Structures are given as C-alpha cells and as structure tokens.
C-alpha cells in the first residue's frame, strides 16, 4: 500500500519477503541462528545466577559469570511494547510491519515482529507464539503470532 494512504487498522501483518537482508552472525550468536534454522528458539541461561540472557552474551549481564548455557525456549510470550512502521527502513521491506518487544515466558525479552493479525489487534499484553519464516542464505527469522 502507498505510505500516503491513511492507515485503517484493518491491514494484515505478514512476514517480510525472503529478500530482506539476512542477519550477519558473530561467533557468539551462531548457535542462535543455527537453532532458528531448525525452527527452534534458544537463549542463554546463566549457570551461576539463573538469569535468562538475550541477545547472545559473553558474560552474564546480571552477575558477570562466564557460565552461560544455551537453552530452548517454548517460544511463548507476551507483547511488552509494539509499533507499526509505515516508512520502511529499506525498500526491500513491505509496510506495514510491526516490530515488538516480547517478554518470553522464560524471563527474557527479545525484539521481533508480530504477524498473523490486523494492525488494530496489536496491544501490550497480547499473548503470542513464535514461528519461523525463511530469509536469504538459509536463515530463518523468528516472528510472533497471537495465540
């Protein structure tokens, strides 16, 4: 839709096309993207203090311990904050899209995007579940859909 036409709230939120720029992992984040390619959502848990850590860290951001172990998330969470973007970051993105911060049930937050609902359905506190959609170079990107 044209960015000039006024939003109605009825617009349906869908995953981005696989042509958006793929992520560029580091040595520390590679396990996350490898799991995502298997459609598994993972995070790190601190062996010392139990703090759930995301995005991938070298030391626990709560206690400083280096003992971080990858764990699998059930992929269920709650929308903590959201926006709807009508002016795309780059032309490869299709608007509207809805970046959101999700509170995962395991006790950490991550940035992703909400799909599978109308713009007008977005609200803080919305219960969502993860699902994966392909992007270039064999990567899969987590999105969240209302449950």
């Amino acid at each position, binding site marked *: 839709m044209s*960015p*000039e036409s*006024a*939003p109605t709230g009825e617009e349906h939120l869908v995953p*981005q096309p696989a042509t*958006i*720029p*793929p*992520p*560029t*992992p*580091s040595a520390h*984040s590679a396990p996350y*993207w490898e799991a995502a390619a298997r459609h598994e959502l993972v995070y790190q848990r601190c062996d010392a203090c139990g703090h759930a850590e995301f*995005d991938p860290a070298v030391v626990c*951001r*709560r*206690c*400083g311990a280096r003992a971080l172990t990858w764990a699998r998330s059930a992929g269920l969470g709650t929308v*903590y*904050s*959201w*926006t*709807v*973007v*009508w*002016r*795309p*970051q*780059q*032309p490869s*993105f299709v608007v509207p*899209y809805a*970046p*959101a*911060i999700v509170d995962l049930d395991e006790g950490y*937050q*991550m*940035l*992703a*995007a909400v799909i599978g609902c109308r713009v007008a359905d977005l609200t*803080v506190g919305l219960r969502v579940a993860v699902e994966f959609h392909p*992007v270039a170079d064999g990567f899969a*990107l987590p999105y969240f859909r209302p449950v």
Partner: protein
Amino acid sequence: MHPFRDVVVAGVHNPRQARVLEGETSLSVAIDATLGALADAGLDVRDVDGITGALSSDLAYDLGLGPVWQSASALGIPAVMEAAAQIATGLSDVVVVAAGQAGVYTERASTAPWTRPNHEFVAPYGMFTAAEFALIARRHMHLYGTTAEQMATVAATVRNNGHVHPEAIYAGRGPFTVDDILASRMVADPFHLLECAMTSEGGCAIVLARADRVPDLPQPPVWILGGSTDRLGPSYRHAPAWDLRGRDPDGIPNGYVGRRAARRAFAAAGLGPDDVDVCELYDPFSFEIIRQFEAFGFCGEGEGGPFVMDGTIGPGGRFPITTDGGLMAFSHGGQTSQLLQRVIRGVQQLRGTCTTMQVEGAEVALCSGGGAGALFNDVLLLGRERP
C-alpha cells in the same frame, strides 16, 4: 571552588543548514563552523590548542592547528564536557568542539544510514530510529495513559519555534496546530511524520576557553554549571526496552536514562529544576520531551503528558523548550551536529541574543542530547553567572 570556574563558553556558530547543502562536504561545513565560532569569540585559529569532534583530525590538519591536543569525542555534550575538563585541568587553553555533515545521506529510498546500523538482532525486523523510539513511547502510553494529543502538543510547540526562526530549515512552514500534527502521515506508530526529527545537512561549533585568555570577549560570557552523560549501551543494537537496566535490578531503567546525569549536573550547579529558565531539550521525537521532563525531575513519573499541556513549554511558559525549532524544524545535520546545537541555543539564550523566542532574563539553561530509544541521554547546565 567550582571545577569549571575558569572555563568560559567563548564562541558559538551555526553555519547555513539545509536539507541538502549542494557543493559542501562534511569537512567544508565543519571548517565554516569552526571559523565562525572562533570569530564569534574574537579568536584566531592560531589561538587554538585543542580540538574535538568526529572530524577533529581533519580539522587539525586542514586548519593547520598542529601540534594540538585532539580527541574524537563526537556526541555533543560529552565533547563539551571533555573540552571543559581539558581546560579546567590546565591541559589546554582554547578548545574547539566542531561538527559537520553533508553528502552522507544519498540513498533516499532507505532511512538515513546512521539510523539503522546493520545489527543482526534488530536490522532483520526493519528497525531504525523512529521505530526504536516508538517502542519507548508505546510503553509509556501503556503505563501512564500518555496521549497522542499530548505528544502532538510537543511537536507543534517545537515546530512553531522553528516556523518563526529565520535560520531554521523549516522557517515559515507553519504554524502548526495539534490537529495538523496528528493529520500528518504515520511513520512509526505512535509517531506521525511531524513528530519526527527531519534529516538534513549542517554543522556547528563551540569554542571553550580559559577565562583569563579571553578577558575581552565580544559576547557576554556563558558558564558551565554542571553536566554529565548517561549511557546504557550502543544505540540500535539491542531491544530498546523501557525497563532495560544494568546489573543493579533496582537501578534507573532505560526509560529514565538521563536521570543520573541530571542529578549530577544539578548537584554540581547547586541548583534544581525550578531554577531552570529555558529547556533546550533534544527533540528526536515528540515523546522524548515528555520523557525527559520526568527523567530530569521536572515532574513525577507518568506526569510528563499532562505537564506539557497548558502552555508550560510554549512561548512565555514556565519551561520553554527547544526554542530554535530543534531537530524537527531547525536542523538535524546527521550524527552529531544537532546534539551540539542544543548547547549553542542555550548559550544564545543566556547571552540574550536570540532573535526569536528569547526567554527574557534567562539565567540558567538546561541542554540535553540523546534519548531512551538510543540508550543514552546527556545533560548540560549553562549559566550567565560565573560559578
């Protein structure tokens, strides 16, 4: 004795700002800014023995300043603080803080390059500055019921300050009502286009000097009463959660980044919010003004929305904001110059030389830079009276 008793703001300058400065480069803009600020201080390039800012190395070379103390502190208030400390500790006498940017934002189908670092956990979700700050604003709306009208009131106020300012890029574009703001197209909900900073080209410079080096300043001296900088991490690489904290679970959250800096600044000055006459607040997005009033202690948590209503922040109000039109209407010349321009406007207010929106008899100005969407916020207190 106040640590900055002997540090005077001697010169300031904004060269021409524009959406696009044809024929200019970042360096040519920074050179114009530097020479203009030195002229404003009645100084010559031969007087300079320190320079900072993103282009400081080029400026040292092209203006022939060397050998000279040089650093690359770039983000506005931190650069001013570093320059002031350099002089206060006796390591330099005349320090220039300069910024300039032109010819960097050319691929206009995308948002400006400095708004969207290619980081793996935000870039694939189409994030850029407006969306980052929208996630902060939305959380505040959820927690406290902050309204679109309150945010639009901020935008209309700032844009109307720019409307009447002949040097603003968007001079004459208004005046704007709250309804005009809310009728502009949505960029990143809840932010309409007119609630967002513009992108432009431009630059500016400030000259700080040891007071006894400049006994006969052409302009009234302005003094640094206090300041500090708050940082929680790199901008636009991690989710900008309101509740993001460091290790201390009871620490100040990202939503109130700038609070620690403001407390330190007020403590150094021996002042409080009620002593401030003009608030030259950083205005990347409408909501950030509301958030900063809460973070800096001008009102209670959650009270920022009502606080900006009823004329408090407008002409003749108790706390006039961003009187040159700010990032929304004056200029947003890239990565750094707009951060320094809030300080320049504060200096002009205290000199009493603003041709528009002059706050009569202003004695204390609070200047700020950054915002919670970017995980940083800095505060500088300027005064007309030597500390």
